[in-house]
């Protein structure tokens, strides 16, 4: 279809304007507000004990969630692609559930399940703090990040098929050796991509985590909760901007990593 020059220009301006207003302006605004008083002020604000604790907690959650998602994500993807069992269709649908369910609903459900009165309340009653503790935040983050590794690895498994693995078997490799030497290297780009997405989502998760965190500054606040509490509870607007910039910085690093990996993947 041939589009006339004025139409084309108008479309372009509208599309760009849309992106600028929606994405660029808010981000730039926060960056501007953060660095307006100088880099020193920013550093001071993100080096308070509460901020350092929040950063550590966010990274700790990522460090726990990522390995679990890798192991179970690859296992689930293998089951979905290679398995021939009853309920495969159900599993296929369940994996996507976190995409469909609002994180805050997840938080509420977790309180109902793990809280003192819930089905798994005995864990809480025995003294092991799940809700309003680290385990609760980890479970909430696991829930919302579950699909990423599965959905990135699955198509790669489909694509590589089983011939390479059969070849390895005829050459004498055990299933364990075949997995480490053939399957894992073959899916590594999909897996890396899934991990990066998981990291980004785990860092940014707010709705589910706020429900199951006690929210004490310096104890049980993640970076997102810190931004939230500084802004709303402490009326520390600048502190909120600074923490948001730190969070964004981490996200940008993951995003850059993802782009680099993506480029590497497409050149292979």
């Amino acid at each position, binding site marked *: 279809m041939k589009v006339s020059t004025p139409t084309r220009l108008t479309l372009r301006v509208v599309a760009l304007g849309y992106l600028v207003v929606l994405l660029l302006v808010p981000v730039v605004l926060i960056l501007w507000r953060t660095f307006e008083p100088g880099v020193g002020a920013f550093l001071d604000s993100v080096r308070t004990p509460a901020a350092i604790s929040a950063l550590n907690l966010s990274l700790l959650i990522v460090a726990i969630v990522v390995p679990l998602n890798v192991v179970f994500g690859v296992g689930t993807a293998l089951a979905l692609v290679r398995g021939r069992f009853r309920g495969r269709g159900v599993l296929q649908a369940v994996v996507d559930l976190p995409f469909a369910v609002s994180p805050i609903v997840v938080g509420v459900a977790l309180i109902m399940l793990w809280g003192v009165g819930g089905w798994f309340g005995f864990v809480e009653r025995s003294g092991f703090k799940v809700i309003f503790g680290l385990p609760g935040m980890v479970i909430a983050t696991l829930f919302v990040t579950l699909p990423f590794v599965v959905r990135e690895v699955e198509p790669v498994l489909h694509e590589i098929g089983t*011939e*390479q693995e*059969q*070849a*390895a*078997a*005829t*050459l*004498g*490799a*055990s299933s364990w*050796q075949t997995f480490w*030497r*053939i399957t894992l*290297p*073959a899916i*590594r780009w999909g897996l890396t991509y899934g991990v990066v997405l998981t990291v980004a989502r785990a860092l940014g998760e707010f709705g589910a985590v706020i429900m199951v965190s006690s929210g004490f500054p310096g104890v049980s606040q993640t970076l997102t909760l810190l931004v939230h509490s500084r802004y709303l509870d402490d009326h520390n607007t600048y502190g909120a901007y600074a923490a948001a910039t730190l969070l964004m910085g981490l996200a940008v690093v993951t995003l850059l990593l993802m782009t680099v990996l993506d480029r590497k993947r497409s050149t292979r």
Partner: protein
Amino acid sequence: MITVSGARKSYGDFTALDDVSLEIPPGSLTALLGPSGSGKSTLLRAIAGLETLDSGRVAIAGVDVTGLPPQKRGIGFVFQHYAAFKHMTVRDNVAFGLTIRRKPKAQVRAKVDELLEIVGLEGFQHRYPSQLSGGQRQRMALARALAVDPEVLLLDEPFGALDAKVRADLRRWLRRLHDEVHVTTVLVTHDQEEALDVADRIAVLNKGGIEQVGNPVDLYDRPANDFVMSFLGSVARLGGLLVRPHDIELSRDRAAAVAADRSVPGSPGVIDAVVERVVRLGFEVRVELRAHTGERFAAQLTRAEADALALRPGDEVHARARQTQDVLEVDPALAI
């Protein structure tokens, strides 16, 4: 030596192998030949252990391997689509079986170098499979399969994904390789020319069963039935009998044709026919004819024969079979 006895395998309603028994002599290059769905690949994969039989047994070199996984059968397997390990160099691909067995590095290196030389890939050690042509990838796959010194080498349509020219080169190369390394080899193919070209024994399969086993000449000249005859080479129907097109002699002189026909036992007689079309295919000439009974058939002549007859469409000729084959049973469904 491979012995398969009473092998059965079905997938739902489809019977892939129906009580197949086969013996493959040591050091031979045997082709399993048949149309798609004949069970030839299933039989090969059952020998490899990549497919489990519903019933029946497989023995390799006198050892019953029916219950063993592929890892423990002492086989080398080559896949139609190469199954190259894409993330490994050519060297690592070929070395894979030896690395798995934790052989000393120096020994692995020497063995891989030797094999790469045999398959003509020296200098390609550091390439990745994606940097190789199809023919090179398949030769790498062969080297990889041979590296573990397999008792038997199993090839599943190894040249099926290659173009015609490379395929012809590679199968002659395989034949020479087999003459050098002498490992018992089984090759699955649907291409009769390929089977006749490389194999010293051919097993013809159809609908999950074996129709005939023998050396290529026997199968071609003394086919057990119409299926084998029409699958190995083209056939023409002359007076109700199946005849090879190159066994049909055309003549303009009816009396001479009748006289010559007397010495052919079981001959269908002299058939009067009209030339419909003359096609020159390089060295040979295909003459398409219609008998007076209305039956159409084609004769294959050399260029010299065709030139001597100077045939043109519409000419009246007299066809006879130079020789007939002892086909045991005649299947009317296979009329060409």
